[in-house]
Structures are given as C-alpha cells and as structure tokens.
C-alpha cells in the first residue's frame, strides 16, 4: 500500500535498530536497569505487537504500555449505564464496534443486543445521526467514547444535529482527555518511567503544547509518534537520544500529520460543545480530576445523561486486578496474579484485557515476544 509500505521497510528497520543499540550502549542508566519508555496510546500498543517490535529492541529497553485505550479504561458502571439506556424499548443505541464487548457488572452491549436491545455498530457518529433521521419515532443514542481523537467528530455531529433540528438524537458522553492522566501517572510514587511516546492522533487535534509540563516540571522526554513501525522505532531512538544528551523536550516525530498548534477547527468545535467534568472514573486507575468532558448546558438536550434516567452506580474494579500497576510500569502484564487464569480476553477482569489495544490482551493474543518466543 502506497504511503504505508514505506513505513514498514525491513531494511530501514535494521538500520534504526542498530542505531538504537549503539545509543543504548552509551546510556548510563541502562547498565543498572532497563530503560522504561511508555507508549501512552493504545494504537501504538497495537502496532508494537502486530509488527513484533518489542522482540527487535535490545533487552535494555522495556516498553510500558500506557492507559491510552479508551475502551479499556471505561469503568464498569458506565457500561452498565450504556446497557440501561440501550435496553429502553424506544432507544436505538449506536456504538463503535470494539466498545460492544466491554464487560459491565452484569452484561456487555453485545449481550444486551442478544437479549433484545437494539444495539447497532457504526463507524462514525454521523452514521448514528443518519439513523436518527431515518427513525424519527425512535430515540437514537450515540455512545461517545475516546480521547481528543474522536471528540471533535462527536462535537461536530451534535452541531450538525442542532443546525438541522434533529431532536431524537443524543450522545452518551464518555470522552476523556489524556493529559490529566499522564500527570496522574507521573505523580504516582512508584513511577519508573524514563520517557514517553506521545499519542499521535490525539496530538493531531491538540498539538504539542499541552505536553510541555512533562518536560518542564517532570523532566521527562516525550516524542509524539506515528503508528507505523518505522515511526515507532524512530521515536524510540529520539527519546533515547534525549536521555543520552540529558535533555527533556517535547519533540514531534509525526510532523506529517501532527501540526504543533493542533487542528483549530476541531478544537473550536470541542470547546464549543464540551466542558471539563470535575473528575472522571477510569477503570484500573480510579478517579482522575478533570480527565473527562460532558456536554455544555447549551447542548444539554443532546445529552443522554440528562435525557434518560441512568443508574450511575459506581462499580469497584475487581480486587485481584492489577491493571493500575501494569499501566504505571510497576509490573509486566504476565506478572499480574490473574493474567491468563481468571482474566482472559474471553472473560476480562481488568481494563487491559478488554480491547486488542489493551496491553494484557495484546500480550495474551500476540504474545510478548521476549517472554514467549525466542527471536531467531
């Protein structure tokens, strides 16, 4: 595929790996412990496993798979709310595909569908709006989920519904924002991270400025990275180079997509439609201040939380689940007590086993190459 194969070139990968190896050899901390680099975004986690990147890296580099999978970090109580809305006979509940399998305390949306709820998979919130127009006698609810990547498309759909007067459409807003969560991870006392790969598609919307505090206050390097395997290797090399040179900067490897200033029409739509919640609950990480958004009062008539009575019951994460420690890089997925036994992709207990972008599910399915398969 043109414009993709160029970023999957095996020969260029070999050269980059050699560069990474020689760079690591000059970094002091690598002599006593592995260098921990967190990829924040689930899309990166997916690529890392899909292309077997971990197994290509020197032993002295450990990738920590971060919290950037919106499906994974959705708390059980919110899934229960989705199911409650979806099970109303007047509702057509629309959702992105991979959110259908996330377990609630009683059932997932997939199970609710099997039990008779009208749950439909869509690829864009605009598809949900089209369903609303075709079904004027039904209430069509879109399950708004994701970081700043998907936030603008939900906002623009609401603005569209407003302008064409579609009143049977609403959004169950579970959009979250990554920056407060990175801060929460950086504030955690057991933190072991030396640098970050920044989320490429989130940054395409918000730009690079919101990450500056990571460099200035926490003195950690971050490189905003693309999603092709060469992007990821080059970004790792850039993080290592900063560590080697004692720098902590926010750099942009994904400049072909990410403008440093972000996307201003998208940001305008976002700030017009949403405001920050005081706090939002994350599966595996607990409540994080200002980490979620809700619809502003001006768009309250598109807010499913106001339109329908939702249970809004908080369900605690299972006690045995160690997702939080995995997310912070304290333990590896397979070191979790329930990994592969009580917690599998079929019956996930913890957030990270839910979506193929979750670190544990990725290890379970694609295999941690270092742990399972010897590299020839």
């Amino acid at each position, binding site marked *: *595929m043109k414009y993709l194969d160029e970023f999957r070139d095996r020969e260029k990968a070999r050269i980059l790996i050699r560069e990474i190896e020689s760079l690591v050899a000059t970094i002091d901390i690598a002599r006593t412990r592995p260098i921990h680099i967190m990829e924040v975004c689930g899309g990166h986690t997916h690529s890392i496993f899909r292309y077997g990147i971990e197994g*290509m890296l020197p032993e002295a580099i450990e990738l920590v798979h971060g919290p950037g999978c919106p499906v994974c970090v959705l708390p059980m109580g919110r899934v229960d709310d989705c199911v409650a809305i979806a099970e109303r006979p007047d509702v057509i509940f629309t959702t*992105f595909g991979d*959110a259908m*399998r996330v377990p609630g305390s009683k059932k997932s949306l997939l199970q609710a569908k099997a039990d008779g709820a009208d749950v439909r998979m869509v690829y864009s919130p605009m598809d949900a709006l089209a369903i609303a127009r075709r079904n004027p006698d039904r209430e069509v609810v879109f399950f708004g989920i994701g970081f700043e990547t998907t936030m603008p498309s939900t906002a623009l759909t609401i603005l569209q519904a407003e302008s064409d007067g579609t009143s049977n459409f609403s959004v169950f807003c579970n959009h979250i924002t990554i920056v407060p969560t990175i801060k929460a991870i950086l504030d955690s006392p057991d933190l072991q991270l030396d640098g970050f790969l920044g989320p490429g598609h989130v940054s395409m919307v918000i730009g690079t400025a919101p990450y500056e505090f990571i460099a200035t206050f926490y003195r950690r390097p971050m490189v905003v990275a693309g999603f092709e395997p060469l992007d990821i290797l080059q970004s790792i090399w850039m993080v290592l180079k900063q560590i080697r040179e004692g720098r902590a900067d926010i750099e942009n490897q994904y400049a072909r997509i990410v403008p440093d200033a972000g996307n201003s029409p998208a940001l305008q739509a976002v700030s017009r439609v949403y405001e920050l919640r005081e706090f939002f609950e994350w599966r595996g990480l607990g409540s994080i201040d200002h980490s979620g958004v809700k619809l502003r009062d001006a768009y309250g008539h598109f807010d499913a939380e106001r339109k329908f009575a939702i249970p809004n019951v908080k369900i605690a994460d299972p006690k045995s689940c160690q997702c939080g420690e995995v997310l912070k890089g304290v333990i590896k997925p397979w070191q979790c007590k329930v990994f592969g036994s009580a917690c599998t992709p079929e019956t996930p207990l913890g957030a990270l086993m839910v979506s193929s972008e979750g670190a544990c599910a990725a290890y379970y399915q*694609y*295999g941690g190459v270092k742990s399972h398969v010897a590299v020839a």
Partner: protein
Amino acid sequence: MNVAPFARSRQLGKVHVPTVTLAHGGGGKAMKDLVDDVFVEAFGHALSAPLEDQARFDLGQLALHGDRLAFTTDSFVVDPLFFPGGDIGKLAVCGTVNDLAVGGAVPLYLSCAVIVEEGVSVDLLRQIARSMAATAQQAGVSIVTGDTKVVQRGACDRLFITTTGIGVIREGVDLGVHRARPGDAVLVNGLLGDHGAAILGARGDMALDSPIESDCAPLHELIADLLAAAPGVRFVRDATRGGVATVLNEIADASRVAIEIDEEQTPIREQVKAFCEILGLDPLYLANEGKIVVIVPPGEAAAALAALRAHPLGSGAAIVGEVTTGEAGLVTMRTIFGGRRIVDMLVGEQLPRIC
C-alpha cells in the same frame, strides 16, 4: 360427468403469486407448487418420477469412486443474500462441495433445505435456486433431495439454506489435521480475505465502497489436481470462518507442532489490506470461500505448488510458511517488518477498532 383418472402423470406446479406466504409451508398444494416451480424446475431432475422422501443411491456405483463415504453438512445465513462475486445459493453449494473435497472426496450428491421468511419474493427464490443449480453443475454434483419451510416474518432473516453432501474418498487418500510434521510446507492457493472483505463491504454499514469480490468457488478440481501431483499431502482445509489464522491454529493444536508463516509471502490483495487498515481488522482472520490451506511434506512442496498454480483457482498459490519443532500449538508470523508475533485463535468476532 368426467371421472378423474386414477393415476395422473406428474406435472410441475406453478406459483402465481409474487411473494411467499405461510400457505407455502403448509404441506398442501401451495407448497408443492413452490417446490416444483422453484426447486424442481431449477435442479432439473425427477420430472417424471414421483418425489420420494429420500434420495436413493446404488452402492456399487458409489464404490466406483473410492472406498469410503464422506458426509458433511453446513448452514448458510449470509447477509446480504447477494454480494459481489456470489450469492447465498452459490455459497451453499460451494461450501459443502469444498468441505467434501478437502477430505480427498469426490463430491457427488447434495441436499438442499431452505427456511424462508414469509414475504420473500418468489423471483428471489427462483434466482437463488438457479444459482445453486448452475454452481452444482460446475461442481459436478447433483442436488437430489430437499426441504422447504416457511416461517413467520421476523423468525428468520429472509432465507437460510442448509446443504448436506455425500462424496466418496479416493482409495489411498488419507488426509488428517493431526498429520502435520516439522519441516512440512504450508501452502495457500491464492489471495486471502476476499470473501470476508466483500461481505463486510456489501453490507454497506461501514459506508465504504469496496470493489472487492468474494472468492466463492468449488475447489474439487483444484484439490484433485493437487492430490494427483503430490500424493503425500498431509492435510487440506478450506479457510472459511475465522480465516487462515484459525485453520493454522487447529493444525498446530491437533498435530502438536508449531507453525511459522511469513507475512511477506502471504498473498493478500492491496484493496483487502487497505480495507483492513481502515477498519482495524486482520486479514488473516477474514473468511474465504475459495481458499485452502495445504500441509505437504517438504519433498512434495514444489510439485504441490506447481499443481495449484496450474489451475485457474490456484494461480496465486504460494508457500506461506513451515511446520516447525517450536512450542506445540503455537502459530507465529514473521512480520513484514522483521519482527515476530503470535497468531492466536480469535476470541469472538472481529470488531473494528475505534481509532
């Protein structure tokens, strides 16, 4: 006063209404008319013979083809009923023919049971039945028995078809999922994932215009050529639901071996790759309806490859991997990027990723 003759010669009934109603499932004249008009008409046999409740075979004739019977059944519920490259009727014949052929059998006879939702147009049924008949002729099989049920609106999705097939396994052919040995070559007969991508595209709910056609085809000839050229073939399976990844896992598990495939050697159409990129799907798990996975001893790999490539349905054949002595049950892929990853069984259905 006219007296009706005691025995009338059998005449084909005719349906004069545009849609199927519950009356067509009632067992009376309306049902006979539907069966005659749609199925007997298309399958074109037994016009003068009375329809019995069972097809009857001469054992001696069957034994001319080989020494063991193969017997298989499959149900077809595809949505949409018509898709680029095929329809549910063609699929229902190919699917069962291929399930017989991959066992080394000569496919001979098929049954056809349909469950129709009331309100389906009779013309649609005729079209599907004609498609089944044409595919059966192409595959060298006869559809010799069948059943029709009509259910209330909402009780099924327009039309479900079940075909059951009988074939005879050639003497000396012994294929088995447990027979893979380290060193064996893993072959496929062409581009993977076309059917799955064609169906997903044709459903239209992804709002993607894809020009991809289903690979739906009867593979009995291709497999016969393969077995003649490489009699040591250990195992053949059509990579339908769950795709090639699932078949490889079944082989690795049953044979207690490891299998490694090479992404670079794995043939996938550019459009299918792009389709999967956009939707966040993995083509290794997409369904095929005209593709087989073949396990063959190393000494016969070249002959097997040549035989597949010599047939129009195998022109894109490739050796995609090898059976190895690694951890039993493990399937891995050497990625195009030079890395390595596990190719596991799919847990549920493949669902598109958010971002």
